[in-house]
């Protein structure tokens, strides 16, 4: 079959689908991820991970991204464990953006050069991206001096210019005003239309409703529900999810 011919080649470059199998992460005697199981299919779309504070959402997304190695269980990208080379086909936007000590433009040029652009070409491409996203004005500003919203938009842009297969975001809009949040969501929607898979953690249920194709509900380190977003919001299957949506989930 075609698949047997294709697989060894594809495996080299492909990240999706991502699977987490019975993931356990323990720290200081506490079990933070408790046999969490989750798979994220190949192809465009938005998977939103929700759950109460401390449920382990950040830990789960970082484990799926290969930044945390689970104590038990395993993460696979297209069938094999995460590796540095394919990590370059993934993006991750942290809740608090981390900017290099250089201008906004140079933050983009830096990652473009990592991916083989030369300096001159990188500059042209970076400038174009900044202009396309309303950030041309701050191109020459030190990135660490930008406002929270600008930094987060730049962090998203910096992840997207490399055209990753999958983009992880951990509460990217947590400290942003509505306008910046909207800008980020627009940017994400455009990228998803072009084929990106987004895995997003958010505390904002309205945002989850706006963006999600698929919802993952995490509770005390376990994936209690995973399913189509409308269906989840219409009729959550577990008592915990119902309580969480009703806003009265007590940990």
């Amino acid at each position, binding site marked *: 079959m075609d698949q047997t011919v294709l697989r060894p080649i594809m495996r080299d470059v492909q990240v999706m689908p991502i699977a987490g199998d019975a993931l356990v992460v323990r720290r200081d005697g506490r079990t933070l991820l408790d046999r969490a199981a989750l798979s994220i299919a190949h192809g465009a779309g938005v998977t939103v991970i929700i759950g109460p504070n401390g449920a382990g959402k950040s830990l789960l997304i970082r484990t799926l991204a290969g930044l945390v190695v689970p104590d038990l269980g395993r993460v696979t990208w297209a069938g094999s464990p995460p590796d540095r080379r394919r990590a370059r086909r993934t993006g991750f936007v*942290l809740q608090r953006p981390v900017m290099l000590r250089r201008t906004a433009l140079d933050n983009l040029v830096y990652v473009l050069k990592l991916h083989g652009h030369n300096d001159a070409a990188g500059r042209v491409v970076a400038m174009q991206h900044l202009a396309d996203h309303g950030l041309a004005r701050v191109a020459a500003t030190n990135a660490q001096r930008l406002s929270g919203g600008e930094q987060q938009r730049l962090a998203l842009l910096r992840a997207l210019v490399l055209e990753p297969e999958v983009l992880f975001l951990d509460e990217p809009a947590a400290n942003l005003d509505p306008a910046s949040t909207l800008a980020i969501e627009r940017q994400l929607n455009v990228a998803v239309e072009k084929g990106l898979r987004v895995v997003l953690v958010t505390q904002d249920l309205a945002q989850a409703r706006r963006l999600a194709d698929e919802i993952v509900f995490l509770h005390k380190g376990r994936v209690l529900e995973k399913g189509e977003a409308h269906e989840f919001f219409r009729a959550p299957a577990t008592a915990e999810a119902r309580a969480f949506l009703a806003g009265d989930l007590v940990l």
Partner: protein
Amino acid sequence: MTDAVWQAFALLGSLNADLIEIIGLSLRVSLAAVLIAALVGLPLGALIATRRFPGRGAAIVLVNTLMGLPPVVVGLMVYLWLSASGPFGALQLLYTPTAMIVAQTILVVPILIALTRQIVADLDAELGEQLRIFGLTRWQQILTLLHEGRAALTTALLAGFGRAIAEVGAVLIVGGNINHVTRTMTTAIALETSKGELALAMALGLVLIFIAGLVNAAAMALRGGADAQLAPGRS
């Protein structure tokens, strides 16, 4: 005494050839020492900051111990290596500027390792995860961290230069304060003062004070610049 002060200024004003020679040698020796120390100290400091390896704890203790070594002890050590009966005696380096460079390098390397380790460790805490997200190799991570810390690292280099140029015990032992060969500002000051020739000693002292001021001003300008442009400013 007042006479000596005037003579000192007269010496400086006349650009006395001996004076210029001594200042030139001091600067060359200390700059060479800092350069070599940087080539060793920056990578080692960054390595200790970012990697866990067996013997890392021992390496840190060793660096801290070396940092506290009195310069005369380093001088003695290098003297024993380079003396005719020592392991490197055949190189005939004792009482040459090279010997002084070796001694000063050994004095500066631990400082640079320790400061680099601190600077890079702090930056790694701030940026490390993002650099892993970028998919950098270990070496790319280290190079990026060194680049990110360039302002603070330059200050560390200046501190190393300050220690080298001001040091007297080690260069006296391995250099010998030979006129026109290994006479540096500090060894000349020691010698001239002991002979009661205060004018040259004071002239050199003034030059050293001036250099110390210059180094500090440079460090401050770097810090100031770093604060103005590079401090994290989030709203």
